[in-house]
């Protein structure tokens, strides 16, 4: 393929409401440039390629075979079914009705409170807990997908001793022998390695252990940690503090390479977007500036986004500090930014002192964090838009140092027994630590983990870990609020918790009773000092609410130590030929811990829309310069290590920066994750964990096929996303949507006037593109995964996809996200073409898909202008694996091969809510029906309800002048409509220099 020449691309610099053509990929943009109008190709879903590979004889053979198989399948009597009642019915289980339990999960270092749905004791769906501050009812993709991990058939299922199946008792005996030897020397030689721990109970246990064995040490390492943030606060305040942002109070936010909207946890996104959501017609929604080293969700949401190289961020921070009057030394002029940007930014921050916020990225060096603290202090933001507290981690040490200490001791033969509580350091420790090699020098290696992974393979003992839905514990949220982690099910495979492992080291409870001890431990910590009756009440309330009220860590007054300001900056090398290498957590598999989660593997990554793979992300400029095209394999050479990776060109990537995401290239993750992508940890060095210079790349000439959903289901550039600026909105509120709101006449019968009329509204101004809706829908509606090969054919099954559009120059594009579920058209084109009436309307306006009628002609999908229908080309739903059956939602049919499916507006939730209402002879109120996507959305972008109820939220949002229907010219009258995106660019930057390509929306 010919390299992309961005200069061929005509760019419409528009300042009038975002009417420049939108593009989804660079290929499309260049094609459009070449042919004037854009070459029209069939989207892969309609490609005849699959059939073309089969010749006539083979076709006839297959047809005959399938006919005879169909006949044979009909020759069996339906099997006799039995009903098996309980011997003793569990209390409070009513019929088959689901029950909900509050629990919490600490998946990536901060906790979210969860409400988990249980069907007959099987956890099937995870929702956010509205009373938990880390969730407020929403969840991120990881929490949504965690229920699949519980039922993953690839989980570690037995105690292994040097890869041979053994027993827990044998392990207890072996460890006991070591411990009795170690305890002679006060535990010298005993090491614990854990990931970041927020659990106060576990921390208390570990402290007891260290007191009992003063010679023992507890190390912490998690590849994606907050070392730099903690070091930054140490630099600025002399102590390690947790920074907590109050995004709802901040009107002007500047992010220095921080992805605070897209990171795990949903509270910042909720607060930030909630405070500026324009559907509520706020005259002044505030402003977000983002300067970042690789495109993120936060940058996509910004009013002004600029790309910068990693090292330039510090220079920008220094220059900004100088502009705000801080005595900073060595502030160079920030050449990375177009002229005037920094000054305008500083002015804006100054004007909004006390309501402004500077956020430093967790991967940025400590000095950037310290400068951000100093700037926030100067602006008087501290105590308003951000506050400080003690760290939420039980042990806020530098994890890089902690790991080095451990590895050095391992190399020196000082470690006799190493007990690893979770984690996978053999895979994810920096390459220069050689963890795997050093591990061989340890006497007894014990690994407690969910999977029999890379680390387990090198250990003497692998102990299956209990999933968080199987064990008692406690967690801390971003603000320190404690929540109880309550199990919903006994360990499926006799898994053990970290609490049990530490207890075993302490010589307590070796009982096989799986959870009673953990329960007592956690309960004892949180009810200590209360009389029995009070303790019961406190405990019950904590379980019921899913959190312990008032347990957040108190804000702490801080005093800035300004010495660091006078230290000169690290030298910033100018342009040069060398490339920056950036390490980023993968948007869907994070650091690899979710590598075996099929939902997350198949979830398109928000910006690249890649599935099942990671890639080396390069800028369009670099691709042109090096002659690279998408899917080209390149060799990444960095500090002596070499890794092969496919290229993916990402608009908005800084020119000389290559980003690799962590978490792929697993060799022992399980059947889903093995062999997917490349392992970027092989390039990672402990001294520069997040970036490095001097990367060399070389094209190998090979190609690696990448499964992207980017090209599928083309909308052919018909202004699917609409955007305008606040200025124009105030001048003429409905200008951007006027043509899409015209009501055209219809020949269909009008919909009935009474009853309910379900409808949805999606606010593009609130959507950050996180894809939590997609996973929530997948979990709720038993949507199968199809695998990389099928995604390559365009056969992914997601009922709600998140489209991503670019606008403007590829170096500096504006990015839009648009979730697209079924539109539930009132005059639905799909219904008219179905020969068997398998897709019909119901009296409440739902466009139904009746699976048992569907014969799979796919006419409906052909005739759907929104391309939201999904067809089961093969038997995608796994009907054989027992544990996966247990995960499914019993309220939703599991579809078989040959059946069309699509978004139902969660008809099962509507029906159940209606039945509950009708039993009480009342009508459904607003909020009685919450769809899965709506519930998961961190920013409340999705409203759902009854159009006939004038007070419903969906009606109120649809009354906005920003409301428009997708492809309204087709007069399908969709029930799902959108609110246009609204940006609030700084007027000073609107007509700025040409480099500021994105000032217009």
């Amino acid at each position, binding site marked *: 393929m010919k390299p992309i020449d961005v200069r061929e691309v005509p760019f419409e610099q528009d300042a009038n409401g975002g009417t420049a053509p939108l593009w989804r990929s660079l290929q499309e943009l260049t094609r459009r440039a070449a042919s004037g109008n854009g070459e029209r190709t069939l989207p892969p879903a309609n490609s005849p390629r699959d059939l073309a590979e089969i010749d006539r004889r083979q076709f006839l053979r297959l047809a005959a075979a399938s006919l005879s198989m169909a*006949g044979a399948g*009909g*020759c069996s*009597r*339906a099997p*006799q*079914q*039995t*009903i*098996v*009642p*309980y*011997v*003793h*019915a569990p209390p409070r289980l*009513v*019929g*088959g*009705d689901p029950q909900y339990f509050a629990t919490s999960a600490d998946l990536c270092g901060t906790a979210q409170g969860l409400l988990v749905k249980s069907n007959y004791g099987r956890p099937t769906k995870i929702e956010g807990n509205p009373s938990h501050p880390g969730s407020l009812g929403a969840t991120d993709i990881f929490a949504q997908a965690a229920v699949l991990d519980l039922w993953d058939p690839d989980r570690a299922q037995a105690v292994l001793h040097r890869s041979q199946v053994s027993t827990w008792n044998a392990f207890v005996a072996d460890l006991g022998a070591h411990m009795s030897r170690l305890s002679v020397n006060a535990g010298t030689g005993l090491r614990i390695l854990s990931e970041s721990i927020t659990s106060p109970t576990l921390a208390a246990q570990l402290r007891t252990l260290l007191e009992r064995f003063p010679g023992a040490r507890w190390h912490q390492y998690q590849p994606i940690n907050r070392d730099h943030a903690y070091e930054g606060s140490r630099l600025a305040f002399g102590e390690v503090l947790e920074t907590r942002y109050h995004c709802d109070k901040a009107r002007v936010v500047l992010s220095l390479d921080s992805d605070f909207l897209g990171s795990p946890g949903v509270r910042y996104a909720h607060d930030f977007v909630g405070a500026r959501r324009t559907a509520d017609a706020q005259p002044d929604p505030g402003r977000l500036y983002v300067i970042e080293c690789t495109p993120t969700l936060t940058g996509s949401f910004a009013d002004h986004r600029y790309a910068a190289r990693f090292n330039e961020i510090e220079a920008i921070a220094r220059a900004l500090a100088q502009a705000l009057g801080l005595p900073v030394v060595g502030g160079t002029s920030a050449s990375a930014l177009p002229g005037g940007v920094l000054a305008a930014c500083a002015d804006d921050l100054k004007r909004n002192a006390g309501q402004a916020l500077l956020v430093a990225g967790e991967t940025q060096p400590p000095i950037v964090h310290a400068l951000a603290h100093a700037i926030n202090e100067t602006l008087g933001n501290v105590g308003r838009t951000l506050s400080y507290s003690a760290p939420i981690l039980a042990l806020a040490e530098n994890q890089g140092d902690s790991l080095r200490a451990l590895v050095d001791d391992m190399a020196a033969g000082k470690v006799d027994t190493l007990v690893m509580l979770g984690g996978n350091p053999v895979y994810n420790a920096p390459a220069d630590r050689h963890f795997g090699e050093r591990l061989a020098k340890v006497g007894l290696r014990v690994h407690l983990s969910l999977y029999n992974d890379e680390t387990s393979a090198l250990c003497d003992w692998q102990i299956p870990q209990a999933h968080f839905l199987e064990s008692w514990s406690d967690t801390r949220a971003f603000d320190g609020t404690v929540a109880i982690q309550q199990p919903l099910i006994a360990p499926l495979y006799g898994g053990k918790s970290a609490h049990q492992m530490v207890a075993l080291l302490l010589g307590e409870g070796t009982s096989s009773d799986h959870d009673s001890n953990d329960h007592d431990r956690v309960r004892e910590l949180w009810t200590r000092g209360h009389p029995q009756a009070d303790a019961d009440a406190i405990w019950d309330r904590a379980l019921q609410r899913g959190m312990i009220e008032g347990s957040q860590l108190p804000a702490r007054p801080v005093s800035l130590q300004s010495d660091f300001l006078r230290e000169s900056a690290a030298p910033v090398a100018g342009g040069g030929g060398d490339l920056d290498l950036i390490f980023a957590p993968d948007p869907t598999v994070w650091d690899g811990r979710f590598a075996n989660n099929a939902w997350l593997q198949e979830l398109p990554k928000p910006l690249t829309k890649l599935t099942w793979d990671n890639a080396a992300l390069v800028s369009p400029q670099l691709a042109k310069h090096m002659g690279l095209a998408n899917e080209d394999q390149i060799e990444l050479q960095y500090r002596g290590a070499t890794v092969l990776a496919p290229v993916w060109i990402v608009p908005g990537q800084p020119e000389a920066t290559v980003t690799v995401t962590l978490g792929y290239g697993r060799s022992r993750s399980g059947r889903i994750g093995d062999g997917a992508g490349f392992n970027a940890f092989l390039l990672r060095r402990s001294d520069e964990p997040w970036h490095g210079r001097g990367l060399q790349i070389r094209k190998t000439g090979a190609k690696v096929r990448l499964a992207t959903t980017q090209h599928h289901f083309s909308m052919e550039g018909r202004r699917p996303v609409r955007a305008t600026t606040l200025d124009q909105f105030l001048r003429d509120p409905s200008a951007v949507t006027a043509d899409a709101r015209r009501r055209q006449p219809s020949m269909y019968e009008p919909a*009935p006037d009474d*009853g309910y009329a379900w409808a949805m509204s999606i606010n593009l101004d609130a959507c950050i593109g996180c894809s939590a809706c997609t996973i929530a829908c997948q979990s709720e509606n038993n949507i199968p995964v199809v695998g990389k090969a099928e995604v390559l054919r365009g056969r992914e099954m997601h009922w709600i996809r998140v489209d991503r559009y670019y606008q403007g120059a590829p170096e500096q594009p504006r990015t839009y996200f648009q979730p697209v579920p079924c539109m539930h058209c009132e005059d639905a084109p799909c219904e008219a073409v179905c020969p068997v009436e398998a897709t*019909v309307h*119901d*009296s*409440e306006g*739902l466009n*139904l898909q*009746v*699976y*048992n009628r569907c014969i799979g002609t796919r006419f409906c999908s052909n005739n759907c202008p929104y391309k939201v229908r999904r067809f089961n080309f093969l038997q995608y739903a796994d009907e054989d694996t027992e544990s996966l059956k247990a995960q499914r939602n019993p*309220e*939703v*049919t*599991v579809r078989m091969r040959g059946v069309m499916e699509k978004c*139902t507006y969660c*008809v*099962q939730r*509507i*029906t159940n809510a209606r*039945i509950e209402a*009708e*039993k009480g*002879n009342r009508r459904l109120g607003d909020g009685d029906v919450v769809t899965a996507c709506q519930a998961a959305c961190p920013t409340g972008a999705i409203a759902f309800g009854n159009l006939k109820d004038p007070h419903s939220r969906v009606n109120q949002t649809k009354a906005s002048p920003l409301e428009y229907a997708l492809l309204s010219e087709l007069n399908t009258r969709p029930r799902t409509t959108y609110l246009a995106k609204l940006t609030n660019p700084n007027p000073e930057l609107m007509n700025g220099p040409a480099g500021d390509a994105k000032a217009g929306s």
Partner: protein
Amino acid sequence: MAQLLRPEQIFALKFGAAVLLIFFVAGILVWRTLIAESPPIDSPVAQTPPFSHKHHISDVGLDCRFCHATVETAAFAGLPPTSTCMTCHSQLFKGQSILAPVAESLRLDRPLHWIRVHRLPGFVYFHHAIHISKGVGCSTCHGRVDQMPLLWRTQSLEMSWCLDCHRAPERYLRPRNRVFDMAWNPPPDQLQQGRRLLADYGIDRRRLTDCSNCHR
């Protein structure tokens, strides 16, 4: 080479093959209809233990809800746990061989296995509670259970049978206080009463034949 068969023979063979094929297909169709329903209508289903609804309802006088406890609240009517059986049978007919499976179930903590009599396909979502609350009586679908020593199915449970009522519910609706009445028979003015009940219960008739009412 000469022809092996004469034209008449060829015709006979071809005709024979066609007839065989037709019989084969017809045979399969007949067989399919015979096995389609399981268990068949009106044939009692043997259970272990041989539980008699007739005895428990007509002789003892138990209410349906004593065992099917969630029929008014949930989709599933509920099947009694062994402990419910033992509320009486820990005293009554204790030690009789017919009850041995129940006693054993409790002793060994091993559940009883009942053969399902009323069965719907997986893509049908039936909800007991809403039918009870809208005045559909037990006996309308399940027949005179109080006269069945062993339970059998009295209705086809096919979709056309469901629609029969969903299209004209006034023919079947009862006052709420007669829902559990096994002996209820439609009064002569059922149609008028049914229409009145339809209004009282607030039933939206249009909704009743929406596919999404039962399929999702």
